[in-house]
């Protein structure tokens, strides 16, 4: 761990936190687990995922 990696790590965290990498992870998961059929398209994935997350008070 060094300071040189700090910007990259922050960028990684931001993207993960925002859920930007969700679809990428899903595609990797789909490939690695050899799930039958083609993976969902990005739009289909976002639609399936977007359940309502309740927000607290």
């Amino acid at each position: 761990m060094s300071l040189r990696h700090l910007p990259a790590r922050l960028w990684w965290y931001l993207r993960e936190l925002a859920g930007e990498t969700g679809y990428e992870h899903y595609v990797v998961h789909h490939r690695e687990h050899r799930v039958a059929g083609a993976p969902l398209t990005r739009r289909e994935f976002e639609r399936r995922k977007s359940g309502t997350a309740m927000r607290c008070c």
Partner: protein
Amino acid sequence: MSIFTPTTRARPGVRSIATWTAVSLVGAVAWGVVALVRGEHISAIWLVFAALCSYAIAYRFYSRFIARRVLKVDDRRATPAERLDNGIDYHVTDRRVLLGHHFAAIAGAGPLVGPILAAQLGYLPGTIWIIVGVVFAGAVQDMVVMFLSMRRDGKSLGQMARDEIGRVGGTAALVAVFSIMIILLGVLALVVVNALAKSPWGTFSIAMTIPIALFMGFYLRVLRPGRVVETSVIGVALLVLAIAAGGWVQNSSWAGAFTLKPETLVFCLIGYGFIASILPVWMLLTPRDYLSTFMKIGTIALLAIGVLVTNPSLQNEAITKFASTGDGPVFVGGLFPFAFITITCGALSGFHALMSSGTTPKMIQKESQVRLVGYGAMLMESFVAVMAIIAASLLDPGLYYAMNSPGGVVGATFQSAATAVTNLGFTITPDSLQAASAAVGEPTLVSRTGGAPTLAVGISEIFSGFLGGTAVKAFWYHFAIMFEALFILTTVDAGTRVGRFMLQDTLGNIWKPIGRVSWLPGVWLSSAAVVGAWGYFLYTGVTNPLGGINQLYPLFGIANQLLAAAALSVVTVVLVKSGRLKWAWVTAIPMAWVVAVTMTASYQKIFSADPKMGFFAQRQRYADAIAHGKVLAPAKNLDQMRQVVINSTVQGVLAALLAVLIIVVIVDGARVCLQAIIRGRELPTTEVPYVESTIVAPSGLFATADERRELVGAATGDGIGER
């Protein structure tokens, strides 16, 4: 197999002992200053130190004890995220990312509003409850609920209640959850209305969030699919522009169009809530959720830095006279039980049990990480509450009471407010009240109840102290209003949706078509029912001559803490059923406490003969006056008198209903516990059987040296974050 197994016990090193001794000493000194200094203004830094040192000790020792001895977390056991991984909702997520997600889900306006209102009792009672409450109750509840839900593939609290206690308790819990959500939404919407009423600046900038969110939704969906960070950066920039533009609107000919009466705002909000809840989530909800998450984390971080840099001193007293007399203007009631009812989120919040079961447990990588995600996120929220009580306590008390008393007490003018505040025993001149309003760019700060404006004044005070000086105070005030309104609106939107699903689910048992999520009339009807229900509370809150916050906030607090009582009772039942009677006190003691608090408060609110305290006594007093044709201040005519009668009746009945529901849950839970104790053996629970885990990951925020070696050995890596 793994060095991560919780049974490993190493002797503490000298460095560790030295560090924790130092932390304890700093914490003890800070607590000493906070608790014992009287008659002079102490620095806010002491509150920050007392909080941080207490959190550190609690996290290091108490949460570890709970994880190891009580829950017996087992990192050799695969979590649902690993077993059921579908890449969509069950998905192994980095612990630090999940901490961020979970924090964003639990922290909203609650930890900001409660402590501000509780500042009426002084800063000390609130601070003690926020810190002690989170350590022994709030964070424990969140972590244990999260753990038990994780062991059940991410089941919701309601489902666990039904499975583990039985149908009666489960149904009572479900009805309670629904009613509590309606009250919560009504009260939160009321906070927004009170912050925006007659404020063209605020109204304009909040209104602008709708086109901004729609644009972001379109951008994310069509122009740059999936580019969340980029979209959020653009969104935040537009948001800041909208706040600045609000200042120009206020001084332009448009000001009139955005100067709205509270009643008008109520209907805007109800209409907005209905439309927002039937639109697809990607249009409004998701983009606004991104905005509010980034604003939340950014503002809280800035506030913490601001307190450290500007080092403000607290103008509030440690304990005010209202703590013992119980007749303060902000809310009625003394220290016990009302300090513990007013501050919910930040110390202990039943609502978190809904958030901690369900989504988050489906994403946990390793069992031991519930400590970081469950306990840790709640400590962070508690810190937000400490920031809020600091912000409220650094205001001049005269200004605080002028802002937070109902209109019936302080009137509408600077003169009447100054007189009323003097009668309360504090001082502020009409001129300084006017100057304070002008400084933040508002026509008036008199009777701006609900907490949001007070917090905004506090935040503008702190921020302008190190970012831009007094010239930009008005900007920071409206920035803070925006920050709160934004996530309240997100909660209103999301809450209406969740309420709708619950309603559709329940009604679907009676009449099939309404349960179908794709049948539009069913969606519209149930959305309208939910919006109508919280809209009713919002409307009565806004028009209540006695003050909506004054009347409704205690009901919200009682409801939220009753839910905590129910959640703690569900988890206690599971602990006892799974043969952990010895450790059941970990959740049973906070449960007993919160039952004592809520039952005392409910009792007083229902049965008190004092019309200011008891809903039914209040009803009686106004009904008697109507019978004699008299009008009692602050009501101005018989219509308002009748309104008070109806409001008090509804609130009293609701308070009684909620109390009964929770008693049912607790008694039914106690029955199951007794069964387990009498039989002297474990009762079957719905825990999912053991499956061995194949992944290796650290448990805490930072990987220890041992964990890093094991990670290398397992050659799994831990994402770029661990490099």
